[in-house]
């Protein structure tokens, strides 16, 4: 199994998770991160670190779409292991519902 990044990461992208991940399994899109399901070892260290509470255990119900999105983009986006500044408007987007439909960008981020 694997942990997954979900909706509230979009446009928040705090990146605290990448510093604590022992296996460097985060990949960076333009406005969110995803977890590579085949690299994640399910240690769960990242989950409580996320200020936006956007990381969930993949075993929780209703996450199929997110599991798929994480797997798809992890193989396309660059690896990120070093935290940078979050977007200036991260706080304003924290908790906004339905960010996937409104704001998701399939473009890659800058990575390390």
């Amino acid at each position, binding site marked *: *199994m694997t942990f997954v990044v979900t909706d509230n990461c979009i446009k928040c992208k705090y990146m605290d998770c990448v510093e*604590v*991940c*022992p296996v460097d399994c985060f990949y960076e899109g333009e406005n969110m991160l995803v977890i590579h399901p085949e690299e994640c*070892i*399910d*240690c*769960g*260290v990242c989950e409580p670190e996320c200020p936006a509470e956007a990381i969930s255990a993949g075993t929780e119900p209703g996450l199929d779409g997110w599991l798929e999105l994480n797997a798809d983009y992890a193989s396309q986006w660059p690896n990120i292991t070093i935290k940078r500044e979050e977007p200036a408007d991260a706080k304003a987007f924290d908790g906004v519902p339905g960010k996937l439909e409104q704001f998701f960008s399939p473009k890659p981020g800058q990575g390390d």
Partner: protein
Amino acid sequence: MSAEDDRLHHVSEDGIRQLVDAFYVKVRADAELGPVFAAVIPGDDWQPHLDKMYAFWSSVMLTSGRYKGNPVIKHTVIPGMKPELFARWLVLFDETCREMFDATVTAAFREKAERIAESLKLALFYRPDRPWPPQATP
């Protein structure tokens, strides 16, 4: 080993070092796990592996970010790797935790170890066209 009162009530870098050292003493003496590890520890020099494990458990239990690696790939190249070995590993790890830490800390280690073991097992052995959990290999 130690009396109940001497058991550690919290996780520290020092506690992790003691745990890892004691655990690998058991591993090396174990009929199932010993030979599998011995085959991949170069020159019988365990210290580099122990150092890596101090960092790994520090990252997992203390979120220190000290370990950086790819354990899935590391495990794919181990000769004689079998799903059943994870169960044996967990028994010895839990036993060592119980000898050193109180019940709460032991449970915290157990939860992490079981999740990680299951995840590694899936990564190494899960195939969509075969039954899960895997049947014991003869």
